[in-house]
């Protein structure tokens, strides 16, 4: 059991660290990690992963809020829409045909990766466009991010960060910090649904949580020292990795 404990803390450390830096929850590492280490069924791995995503968010947000890197008005408004998506996803997850969703999600990620690749195009500091059609588009996209979060056991950050950066116009480093804050409530809402159903393996989730909180807290402290370009390249690589995995999952459904 102690080897399993160390492995769970280790996978949590990696997921929390990467998640806090890139504005995602780390569920993309956690779900396969938990299945591999503890042999959890997919549904239980998703449930435990969502609990850990809350850990990433809480530990990362604590640092980012103190550094004033979280755009709270945008975060609070968009949180509502991600929660709606996450709750709906948690309730209907068992009845959804997953195959087509995986393919659609992969295409979306590939397009996003292309748009996110660092170029010379500058996004002016604080020149956000959280008004009119962009505000409605961001709200709709946030519902989608919540759906993805609840269905796949991830924080939804892979969509939140592009929404905040490309659509709302928040600078990339602030977008990642704001996303880390948003995913906490999204994942918590989705995890609550799984928890009530009894899908959360508490020991596994608890062990991985310790790692995610430690990893996210340390990574958030050092996030300011990482160049935005490096973060963007890392994020695009993450998007491509997720798209690849989603295609694999989609193929496995048929």
């Amino acid at each position: 059991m102690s080897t399993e404990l160390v492995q769970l803390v280790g996978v949590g450390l990696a997921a929390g660290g990467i998640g806090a830096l890139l504005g995602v929850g780390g569920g993309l590492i956690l779900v396969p990690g938990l299945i591999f280490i503890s042999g959890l069924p997919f549904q239980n791995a998703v449930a435990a992963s969502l609990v850990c995503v809350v850990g990433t968010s809480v530990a990362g947000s604590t640092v980012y809020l103190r550094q004033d890197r979280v755009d709270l008005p945008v975060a609070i408004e968009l949180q509502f829409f991600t929660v709606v998506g996450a709750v709906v996803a948690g309730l209907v997850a068992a009845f959804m045909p997953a195959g087509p969703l995986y393919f659609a999600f992969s295409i979306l990620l590939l397009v996003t990766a292309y748009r996110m690749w660092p170029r010379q195009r500058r996004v002016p500091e604080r020149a956000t466009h959280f008004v009119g059609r962009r505000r409605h588009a961001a709200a709709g996209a946030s519902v989608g991010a919540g759906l993805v979060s609840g269905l796949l056991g991830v924080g939804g950050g892979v969509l939140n960060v592009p929404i905040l950066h490309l659509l709302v116009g928040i600078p990339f480093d602030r977008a990642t910090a704001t996303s880390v804050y948003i995913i906490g409530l999204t994942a918590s809402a989705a995890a609550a649904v799984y928890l009530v159903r009894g899908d959360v393996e508490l020991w596994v989730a608890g062990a991985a949580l310790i790692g995610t909180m430690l990893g996210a807290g340390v990574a958030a402290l050092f996030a300011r020292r990482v160049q935005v370009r490096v973060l963007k390249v890392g994020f695009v690589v993450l998007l491509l990795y997720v798209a690849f995995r989603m295609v694999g999952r989609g193929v496995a459904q048929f």
Partner: protein
Amino acid sequence: MSHSSDRAPVSDALGALLARILTACQVLAIVAILAGLAATPSGDAASARSFARLATSLGVGALMVGPFLALAAAAAATARRETRLAVFALAAVLVALGGAALAGL
């Protein structure tokens, strides 16, 4: 209304308040989960197992409540000057609670 005009009334103090709330939840979660994990290896006895389960549940619960407490605090803090934000915050909490209640049915 541009976003930058939204931002000004939501003061840095709110960020600091939310950070304190989340820190408190995090500390409680870490202590409880570590206590639960420490009790597990010697958990042959039923009492040790139930303690481990209780402590881990408490830790996970404390952590999961954190974002909701933060949102409720944000709603309370912004209710007078930022009614729109307060409404969104309260609605998010209600939707999440409703979802958990529906799942429990």
